[in-house]
């Protein structure tokens, strides 16, 4: 999976920037671990836990949606299936969601493959609409199935921990998941598989005729993404302790994930790390400052402004800054390789 592009990595200044980024990430992670260990404010631990959950979901979405260019509005489908898998296994067999989370991932990936075969033939808006409709269809099935207890939902008993310890547990679980998935997405971005996905995004037909096995690439990306989303859903079920079809298959989940990916910069591993905390913290601040109607309006305005002035998201803006910096440093060539 080693990328052919490794031979063309940038020069000394680019390496310095990368090193700076790595140090920043390590220090940030260290600070988060420290806060998770000693922090006592449940509200902040809970909010950060949600941020890590969304980092995980957005990174997973990014694999097919960001790198592959398939705008998927169906994250909630696989999240809900993952959540219901662990909830049902607990309800009927008494198995802990922490043990059955991988099974939740497998179930979500299985559904992802089944749904992916017909839907991944569609492109653009058609794919987006169909993925959204599938969420509603699966939600209706779960609403009417006896194994899921229909609209009554499923209760999961709370773990025998203090409220603070509980928040701390989920803080670290979702942080761990977010770190692992971010590393995976980083590896994908720098692999031949990632570049093949980018080629699919740029021009699927052109990619296919020059030898990229586009169908296989899309199916694998979809299976990996849905597996991760399913695991996150499986753990989420234990966190909220009561699962009903409206919560588990909420369209808000799908919409938030797309917003985070786009605002952060779709197709970059850094995008979700920037946008998930930004959106959730801003939304939280707006929620406590304004009424629900007003905060939604303000939030929408913020999103429109970002879409207008940062069409490639925060990472697109940072990339253009980086290019300007290199042009300033190397006015003759203006490119990074020249500085090697």
């Amino acid at each position, binding site marked *: 999976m080693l990328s*052919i592009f490794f031979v*063309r990595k940038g020069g000394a200044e680019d390496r310095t920037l990368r090193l700076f980024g790595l140090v920043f990430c390590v220090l940030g992670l260290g600070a988060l671990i420290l806060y998770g260990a000693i922090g006592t404010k449940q509200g902040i631990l809970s909010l950060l836990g949600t941020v890590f959950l969304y980092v995980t979901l957005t990174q997973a979405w990014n694999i097919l949606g960001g790198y592959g260019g398939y705008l998927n509005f169906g994250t909630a489908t696989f999240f809900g299936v993952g959540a219901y898998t662990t909830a049902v296994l607990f309800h009927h067999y008494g198995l802990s969601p922490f043990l059955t989370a991988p099974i939740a991932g497998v179930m979500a990936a299985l559904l992802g493959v089944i749904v992916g075969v017909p839907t991944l033939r569609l492109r653009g808006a058609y794919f987006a609409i169909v993925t959204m409709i599938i969420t509603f269809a699966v939600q209706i099935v779960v609403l009417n199935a006896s194994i899921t207890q229909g609209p009554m939902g499923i209760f999961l008993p709370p773990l025998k921990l203090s409220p603070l310890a509980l928040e701390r547990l989920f803080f670290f679980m979702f942080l761990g998941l977010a770190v692992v998935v971010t590393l995976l997405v980083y590896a994908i971005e720098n692999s031949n598989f990632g570049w093949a996905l*980018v080629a699919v995004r*740029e021009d699927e*037909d052109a990619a296919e*005729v020059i*030898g990229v*096995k586009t169908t296989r690439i899309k199916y694998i990306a979809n299976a990996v993404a849905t597996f991760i989303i399913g695991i996150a859903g499986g753990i989420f079920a234990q966190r909220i302790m009561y699962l009903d079809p409206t919560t588990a298959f909420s369209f808000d989940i799908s919409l938030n994930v797309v917003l985070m990916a786009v605002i952060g910069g779709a197709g970059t591993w850094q995008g979700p790390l920037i946008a998930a905390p930004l959106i959730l913290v801003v939304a939280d601040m707006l929620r406590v400052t304004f009424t629900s109607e007003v905060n939604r309006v303000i939030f929408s305005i913020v999103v429109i402004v970002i879409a207008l002035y940062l069409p490639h998201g925060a990472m697109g803006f940072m990339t253009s800054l980086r290019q300007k910096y290199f042009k300033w440093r190397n006015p003759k060539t203006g*490119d990074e390789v020249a500085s090697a």
Partner: protein
Amino acid sequence: MNPALLEVDSVGKQFGGLVALSSVSFDVPRSSVVGLIGPNGSGKTTLLNVINGIYAPDRGSVVLDGVPTKNRSPSDLAASGVSRTFQNARVFSTLSVEQNLFIPLLHRSGGERAKSIKRADELLAFVGLEAHANKTAIELSGGQKRLLEFARALVTKPGLILMDEPFAGVHPQIKATLIRCIQEIVEREGASFLVVSHEVPDLVNLSNFMVCLVEGKVAAAGNPKDVVRNEKVIEGYLGQSDE
């Protein structure tokens, strides 16, 4: 060894009630340039899409190097040495020029990869884009995009290159570069080209063999100079000269 690299035999293709191709047959010999001409809507691009595996033929067969291409995907055919360019240059806009050339090499490994990377560098110089290697493809002019797409089609050292209107709307200098490169690749590497173009005089000079399609049928095939003098070709495509 079969003298023909590609055999198109009685190929038919229909889209609903529209007959795009009707019993089209011809061969592409090894180390040759075959020109494909015909009026708009005569089925030239459809034929390239059938040869390329984008469309499956409704009737007839396409045989590449003695092996039928039936049910093979474009990526499979690319692995067997079929490459192509499109009517409008389709480059990967957000990637750099050299990254565009690396995409076809993704599945290669080890020594083969190292050789291919060297070839990518050589091809950029060959088509005159070496100074633009680190530019994003979207920054190139229309003609440069054509050259890039051409270089990308050559990077895997294919045996058959399908080119759909490569000379349309490009500067004469870029057209000359493309013609020179095609001739050199045929001579040096023994590749074959199937070139669709409305630039008939250029194609007559470039081709060893020519096929004219009119309304999805072969109106004439053979020596390029004979084809352009053929009555059916004049009537169905070229029209009478004023003289």
